[in-house]
């Protein structure tokens, strides 16, 4: 996909593949045939730059044909560089890409569900670097204020951002304590271990009176030994030869 597009973000998408697979194939209540079914669980992707992993998951789940993945980032494609609802791709809840906004939107969706006494859940997906945006913490404060136990935020804790390690660029630790002090139930797990992910999602679902955050430790570039944990691959694309070699490793 990315080699064909010639630009995009490989590392983060690979690191999140296990989380997306677990969500869309085990956790979510959704119907790819009726993408706007009102009882569906909502997924808000706050980090629009990992759109490739969302698109690949949606296609495999049956939202649209797999061969459309090749149109990523091309003129006229429904697969925008960062998700855009106006282009009509089924399964996209929010056009997003400016970091720090998704948590607020998800809070709004969760408040609406509470007001209407609906039982669906809201899941939002965030990068760890994204948590440096101040508006994230405004939203975090409001989610616990309104006791949004129908809301689960997932933080992709790969420890890396474009300029390097998150702890060098702008320290996030102690991250779990930050969320806890904002009134959230904190669940830690290995975000590349599906059994652990299933376990924390189950725990999040029985939370009462508090929103849950899953801090999922992932490996950027997971599955391709030569790029795993290398922040240079945050926003880099492989050449065609590299892509073939990488795909071989993933198989």
């Amino acid at each position, binding site marked *: 996909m990315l080699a064909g597009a010639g630009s995009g973000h490989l590392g983060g998408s690979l690191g999140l593949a296990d989380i997306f697979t677990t969500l869309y194939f085990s956790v979510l209540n959704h119907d790819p045939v009726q993408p706007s079914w009102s009882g569906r669980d909502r997924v808000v992707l706050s980090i629009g730059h990992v759109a490739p992993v969302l698109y690949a998951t949606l296609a495999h789940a049956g939202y649209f044909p797999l061969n459309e993945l090749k149109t990523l980032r091309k003129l006229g494609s429904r697969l925008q560089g960062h998700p855009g609802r*106006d282009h009509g791709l089924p399964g996209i809840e929010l056009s997003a890409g400016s970091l720090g*906004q998704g948590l*607020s939107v998800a*809070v709004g969706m969760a408040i609406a569900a509470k007001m209407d006494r609906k039982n669906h859940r809201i899941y939002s997906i965030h990068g760890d670097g994204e948590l440096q945006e101040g*508006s994230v913490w*405004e939203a975090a*404060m409001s989610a616990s204020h309104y006791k949004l136990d129908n809301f689960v935020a997932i933080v992709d804790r790969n420890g890396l951002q474009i300029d390097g390690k998150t702890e060098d660029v702008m320290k996030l630790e102690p991250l779990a304590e930050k969320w806890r002090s904002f009134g959230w139930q904190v669940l830690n797990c290995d975000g590349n271990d599906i059994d652990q992910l299933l376990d924390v999602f189950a725990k999040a679902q029985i939370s009462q009176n508090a929103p849950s955050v899953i801090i999922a430790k992932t490996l950027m570039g997971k599955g391709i030994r030569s790029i795993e944990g290398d922040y240079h691959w945050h926003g880099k694309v492989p050449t065609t030869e590299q892509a073939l070699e990488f795909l071989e490793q993933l198989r």
Partner: protein
Amino acid sequence: MNPYKNRGDKPTKTGFAEGLLEAGLRNPQVVCLGADITTSVGCNLFAETLPHRFISLGIAEQNCVGVAAGLALEGKTPVFSTYGVFAALRTTDQIRISVCYNNLHVVIGGAHAGVSVGPDGATHQALEDIAVMRVLPGMTVLSPCDAMQTRVATLAAIEQCNGPVYIRFGREAMPDFTSDIMDFTIGKSQILRAGNDLTIIATGHMVWEALQAAEILETSGIGARVINMHTIKPIDRDAIILAAGETGAIVTAEEHQIIGGLGSAVAEVVVQHHPVPMAFAGMQDHFGESGEPRQLMEKYGMTARAIVEAGLTVIKFKMQIAKCN
């Protein structure tokens, strides 16, 4: 003679509060988001009457806009009001992406518009909000002229629009003179006074000043048409082109920076379709300061007298051009 009578001074903010409550009573999907300053931004009536649909989010405007987007995605009609300086400027990125790019029906109220906020000074006087809001794709920008019209415009913003709307209003009690039976259609300006020598296109508080200016000009034998441009976007192109053609000179008047505001929006139409001399009454690329509302409007050229001076300038240009031809 000015055919419009002031029923008594009233803040446009009050009209917003009344319209918001009315819309809330009519439609259970209308919700209101508060960023602490509930009473001073016109959310108090709604919050007191419909507390279960008032969502207090504290002093966190960026979050308010995002939460509003989430509520709109779920079929609610969220109204978020705060001082215009924060509503339009602190949250511009959230409005651009979460609201406008998602094309969501979120109504944003911009209170404390203009220098007439007075003693609070420059930090709280919204003078750039029209420029920033009107540049966003899909955004409707409303700037009603008095309390009565602000009530009607608020109802229209909540009940008749499908996409994002920004509506600005002021704090100071100002003449309340329009009638609720006057037709109010978003995007359709109102000719409040006929005239063929020049046109004054005004918005917000400056519409009353424009009517006063037209009276003064009449004493010099100059017939000024007065247009109330209550919708900055989509701008009423037809009315502007007609005014340019029939009167040959235009003055714009706004309680806003002349860069990017009403004057710019009118000029964009004029230069493309019917170039005529123009002059702009408004803030001339300055910050405001503390003072009484009237003192500030006078100091910074946002009064009937300033409009008259601008009118005489464009008439002179118009005559020079006529001579050249």
